[in-house]
């Protein structure tokens, strides 16, 4: 087991190195003049030259790369031109909002996707199966930004049930951050009114964000369940007189959950990246909105910071899934 864990951590380390290389290439090789890009759209020639010297952009590429890596290792992502703060500070400030949104959306996706997948596998080729199939394909095809606008129009404007956008009303004082997640903090402070308010703001963006994830969890879980229910051990269990409920929930689902877990790991990273669209629609103050507003303003460093953070999340989620695989499937530890 220790060997398996070490190997997986080594692989994750390699991925991290790849991520750093990739962002370095994008920042320093792709643009025609990296210094002009780093200095921002309104910089004059002397300013660009100063940035070139300050960041060492006149040095050879290997030396620049070394400097880039040491900076990142110290948590230095550079300076944001628009906010005037270090990008690291901004990321620390915006990330909890995104994390909260992704956690809620992922919970929704798993809690609805897995049971619906099981249900459509049990009713294979029946009306429920066809309905969930159409639902799943729609979930992947719906443009999230448009779906978000429609939900805002329906639930916020016409029905008036939920707030349109933002994380809290502008008149509400946010609580002292403990974890940075409003839903958790308001509970820790024992403030129920605040919890309800935060929950009402998160519902719509979480639904929009969870839909593609829900759809793919549903599809994968369905096809794995169909496969698992055909296996010999299911027949054996049935012959032994195990109750149908137990066969589905324990024997089959346990085996179908492994590939589902892999999809959940992948989707965690993808969700972080689709927050770019969802946060833009709902003015959710997270890293996605930060990346978009920076990219539009030509403020380059924050975009690279967000890319690194999303990539890091993607990597960690995959690592956790790999390790869980090792725990759940003993055969893999020796492979």
């Amino acid at each position, binding site marked *: 087991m220790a060997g398996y864990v070490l190997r997986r951590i080594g692989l994750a380390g390699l991925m991290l190195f790849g991520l750093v290389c990739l962002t370095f290439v994008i920042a320093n090789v792709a643009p025609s003049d990296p210094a002009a890009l780093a200095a921002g759209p309104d910089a004059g020639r002397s300013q660009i030259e100063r940035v070139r010297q300050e960041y060492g952009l006149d040095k050879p590429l290997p030396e620049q790369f070394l400097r880039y890596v040491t900076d990142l290792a110290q948590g230095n992502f550079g300076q944001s031109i628009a906010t005037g703060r270090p990008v690291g500070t901004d990321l620390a400030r915006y990330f909890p909002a995104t994390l909260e949104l992704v956690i809620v959306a992922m919970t929704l996706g798993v809690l609805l996707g897995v049971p619906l997948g099981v249900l459509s596998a049990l009713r294979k080729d029946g009306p429920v199966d*066809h309905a969930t199939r159409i639902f799943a394909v729609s979930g992947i095809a719906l*443009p999230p930004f448009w779906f978000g606008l429609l939900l805002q129009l329906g639930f916020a*404007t016409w029905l008036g049930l939920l707030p349109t956008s933002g994380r809290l009303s502008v008149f509400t004082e946010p609580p002292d951050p403990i974890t940075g997640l409003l839903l958790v903090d308001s509970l820790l402070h024992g403030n129920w009114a605040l919890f309800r308010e935060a929950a009402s703001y998160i519902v719509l963006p979480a639904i929009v964000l969870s839909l593609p994830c829900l759809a793919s969890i549903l599809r994968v879980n369905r096809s794995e369940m169909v496969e698992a229910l055909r296996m010999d051990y299911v027949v054996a269990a049935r012959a032994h007189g195990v109750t149908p409920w137990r066969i589905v929930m324990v024997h089959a689902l346990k085996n179908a959950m492994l590939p589902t877990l892999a999809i959940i790991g992948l989707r965690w990273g993808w969700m972080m990246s689709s927050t770019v*669209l969802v946060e833009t629609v709902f003015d959710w103050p997270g890293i996605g909105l930060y990346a978009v507003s920076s990219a539009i303003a030509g403020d*380059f460093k924050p975009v*690279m910071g967000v890319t690194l953070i999303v990539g890091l999340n993607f990597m960690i989620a995959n690592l956790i899934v790999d390790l869980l695989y090792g725990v759940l499937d003993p055969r893999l530890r020796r492979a």
Partner: protein
Amino acid sequence: MSAVAEQAVAAPPRRRLRLAIWLFSRSFSSMLGLVLVSVIVLLALLGPWIVPYPDDVQGGINLANKLQPPSWQHWFGTDEVGNDILTRVIIGARISLLVGIGITLAAAAIGVPLGILAGLAGGRLREVIMRFTDLFLSVPGLVLAIALVAALGPGIVNAMIALTLVWWPGYVRLAESKALSIREEPYIEAARVAGAARARILWRHVLPNSLSPLIVKMSMDIGQAILAVASLGFIGLGAKPPTPEWGAMISIARGYLPEWWWYAVAPGAFIYLAVLGFNLLGDGLRDILDPRSNRG
């Protein structure tokens, strides 16, 4: 269904084709996909000749007519400068389809040769190609595309370049795994024993046999590429208004919500139907061409 489909693979070519068409036409969702894709393709081909208001394509200004609700003259209403939204959405089909197909073809053109090469060459070359591919897979697509567009500068051409760079690794992975499994097949060995040149083996034996999963993936990817381009257009990094690109239209329409809600509805519905069409088509094609890989 899958048992019948697997028979289809074993039968001789003409009967195989007839069986495949029959299976495809029996599936409601596949046919829906085919119909949707055909409609989008027809709109894209005939666009300039069938739009009700050809003058609005370039973005004429007719302020007296602005923000009209849907009516018999303007099925989807008019936009903030008085252009007919139906006209602009039909022209948008042209842009989206072209861009979606362009990105997918470019990504496949880069990824498939690299993947086949990696799968057949093996050894160090394979290692280099696959590690390089993994590099691009270390960040989820949309964020990577935004970072690339931020580096290259906004605009529809740069958005296409960025999305192509994001998309090709998937084709390397697919082609490599196909090539790896085909390499072991007896008919490749037979061809080699018969003295076929390497290029001939690649072109005549490996490529045709990896074609089915490739077609399925390309069909799905055209849809996803249309969605990605619209997404970049929506956040302001893709096509710039007044180009009638669907995502960019929604981005402007957002400023006119909720009073003029119909402005945002039509372009979004077209994105949805186009992506849905290509996904259903890909799904249906997979059921008949590549029945064993029906996952996710």
